[in-house]
């Protein structure tokens, strides 16, 4: 252990406990605390339009969902192509409550933290259930099993009157300590709520990965037979990986429904699932920071492409067709380029940057 707890360079761990610390130096802890403080304070200082606040909220919700997807696909190595369906399970749990007891019922409007947890719990149950085939299936076969869940989910929502046959089910405005959250404060309020959840879930996963349960996820991913021989339970590990992913997705879905004040099937389709997978890949599979980088990168890329198309409309008469080509092209290109040249995702760039700063002015 380095004597200097502020600027330790190199690894001087003398115990396993030291190596498992969340923050290696006081400087790490301070930077993290300042960063979190900035995330909370900046909206009070700098006013952002509702459009961009909505984009930010969307990125944060995607982060919640990707933390879950990264657990199951990145850490446990179980491919899931139906993640949007799990998100949808959370959203529709809330929506069914709203449809049954009324969208302005006190449970929906006042007990929304409870509804978030409940939606997550239902997501976890569905996750565990869908995870059962993982006991027998692997790789591509498991991917198809999760894909079928996505299809069943879409069919069920589209055809059952309970789910309004896919039409938007409205959700009422929520209340906070100061009364009902008005339209003007809606996006800011949810920014703070979702940000808090992202931080809590991030820390929870960070801690999970330090525990035997987290390590068994990685062990099962690397070699489930070896993990079994080491005394772990690969079957249980796979099922709880899916259950945890389902929980995070369920919470993300409920947040989405609250943010958009309704749940409709369009937000939980297969293309959304693929988009989530792309976020996880671009961010960095099997890394916690990747769960934050991926959604931010993909959503911002989307927005920038839209802006580019709109800007080019001033010069190109056929601008409308440019939009058709550019969006899928950039989306596909980014994934292919990352898979080819940076399969460890943006998280690896972040790791390199941190390492460089930590060692500076030395090269190694």
């Amino acid at each position: 252990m380095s004597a200097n707890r502020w600027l330790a360079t190199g690894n001087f761990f003398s115990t396993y406990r030291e190596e498992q610390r969340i923050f290696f130096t006081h400087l790490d802890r301070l930077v993290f605390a300042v960063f979190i403080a900035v995330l909370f304070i900046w909206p009070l200082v700098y006013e952002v339009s509702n459009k961009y606040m909505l984009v930010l909220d969307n990125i944060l919700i995607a982060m919640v969902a990707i933390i879950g997807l990264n657990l199951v696909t990145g850490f446990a190595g179980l491919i899931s192509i139906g993640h949007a369906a799990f998100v949808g399970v959370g959203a529709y749990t809330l929506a069914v409550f709203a449809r049954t007891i009324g969208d302005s019922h006190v449970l929906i409007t006042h007990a929304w933290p409870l509804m978030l947890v409940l939606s997550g719990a239902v997501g976890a149950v569905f996750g565990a259930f869908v995870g059962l085939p993982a006991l027998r299936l692997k790789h591509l076969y498991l991917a198809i099993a999760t894909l079928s869940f996505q299809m069943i989910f879409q069919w069920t929502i589209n055809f059952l009157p309970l789910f309004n046959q896919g039409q938007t089910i409205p959700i009422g405005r929520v209340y906070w300590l100061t009364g009902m959250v008005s339209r003007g404060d809606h996006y800011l309020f949810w920014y703070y709520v979702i940000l808090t959840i992202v931080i809590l879930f991030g820390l929870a996963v960070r801690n999970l990965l330090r525990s035997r349960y987290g390590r068994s996820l990685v062990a099962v991913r690397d070699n489930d037979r070896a993990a079994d021989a080491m005394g772990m339970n690969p079957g249980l590990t796979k099922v709880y990986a899916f259950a945890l992913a389902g929980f995070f997705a369920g919470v993300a879905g409920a947040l989405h429904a609250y943010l958009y004040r309704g749940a409709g099937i369009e937000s939980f389709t297969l293309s959304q699932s693929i988009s989530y997978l792309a976020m996880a890949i671009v961010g960095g599979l099997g890394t916690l920071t990747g769960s934050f980088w991926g959604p931010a990168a993909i959503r911002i890329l989307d927005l920038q492409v839209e802006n580019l198309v709109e800007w080019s409309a001033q010069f190109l008469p056929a601008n409308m067709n440019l939009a058709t080509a550019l969006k899928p092209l950039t989306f596909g290109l980014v994934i292919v380029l990352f898979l080819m040249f940076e399969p460890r995702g943006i998280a690896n760039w972040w790791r390199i940057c941190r390492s460089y700063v930590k060692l500076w002015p030395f090269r190694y």
Partner: protein
Amino acid sequence: MKKRHAFMMQVVLAVIVCAALAAPSHAGQVYKLALSLAITGPTSDAGNPYSKGVEDYIRYVNDTKLLGDDTVDCPIRDDQYQTDITKRNFEDFLSEGIVLYLNYSTGSTLALKRDFDEEKIPTIPASFHAGNLVDSKYIFLPIATYSSQCIGLAEYIVANHKGGTPQVAMFIHPSAFGRGPVEDVQNAVKSGLKMDIVEVVEHGKDLDNTATLQRLLSKNVQYVICQTVQSPVATLIKDAQRLGVTAKTFGEAGKLTFTGAHYTGGNDLIDLAGSAAEGFFWTTSYTLTSEPGPGTDFQLMLAKKYSRDEKTANSHNYTNGMMVAQVAVEAIRRVKAEGGKVTRESLYKTLNAMNGANSYSPGNTVGPVTYSPTDHAGVDTLQIYSVQSGVFKAVGKPFIPKFAK
């Protein structure tokens, strides 16, 4: 020192004179509208000409100074038929200070309905779903609802059917857009419209409808009312032609007569189905360029002025886009004419007063646009068209369905 002071005075005076000459005598106001729709993605075949209709009419208003020195600014954004993007676009438009909003799909209109009411912003969507008007004060449909259109087709079937009670099937899109009118048609039957709804078929993405058609025939179905988009209808009627079960004349016994609401027809259907479209009966509230008149002449002139291709110029979705822009501009014109300030509230009041002697005839609809605080469906009148020798021709006179609420 004195010389220098005089020189400075001259420079200041020159600047003031130049500035005064450069400034326009009267700077007009800019009224902001906005449109979010599917220019790409699902239903973009309708959204693309629709957006051009809106764009061209707004350009025409500004170019010909229809509002005097005042101009209309109407940014158009692609939402790829995704409600999440529509919501983002809508929030952006609100921050830009729009006074009236043009929306597109049924899904996004239903999802944003509460936002429109909270913002008190008059909204004209491209969706004619009757559900848009439920619990909503600020949504104004341009023409009769899908329900009204389907009931209109049903009334036409009942009026022209020979023999006993007509046996009818509905062929619908598997969504709110398709399912919406089913219950209303069933209610019309309960209220005394003498026909039997034998089956409601929700189509998937089938490439072959042989089984469906054979089943309908085995149930003695003679008429099919379609409430969907063009491509599934094209597949259906092409299969019917292949099987030789398409009626040669309206209501031919033992054969099927196909009919459809607004988004099933138009030139796109003829392009997709070819000769199978012959004898297809379609209803809409718009005039068509295949039936020339002053409204269609204006439409073709507008399309030519802004260099649109033939397909766009003759598209009923181009008419549709033009018409909603016309209604929006007319509301602005009326507020100005009354000496009022163009705001969301004044436009809302003006639209609600658009009835009776104040109803508005844009020229490209088969009846006037009428709104009132209790009726937010614009043109109530429908026209039946049928494909004859490769073009849609009017059949009979425009009418208002009696069984439509």
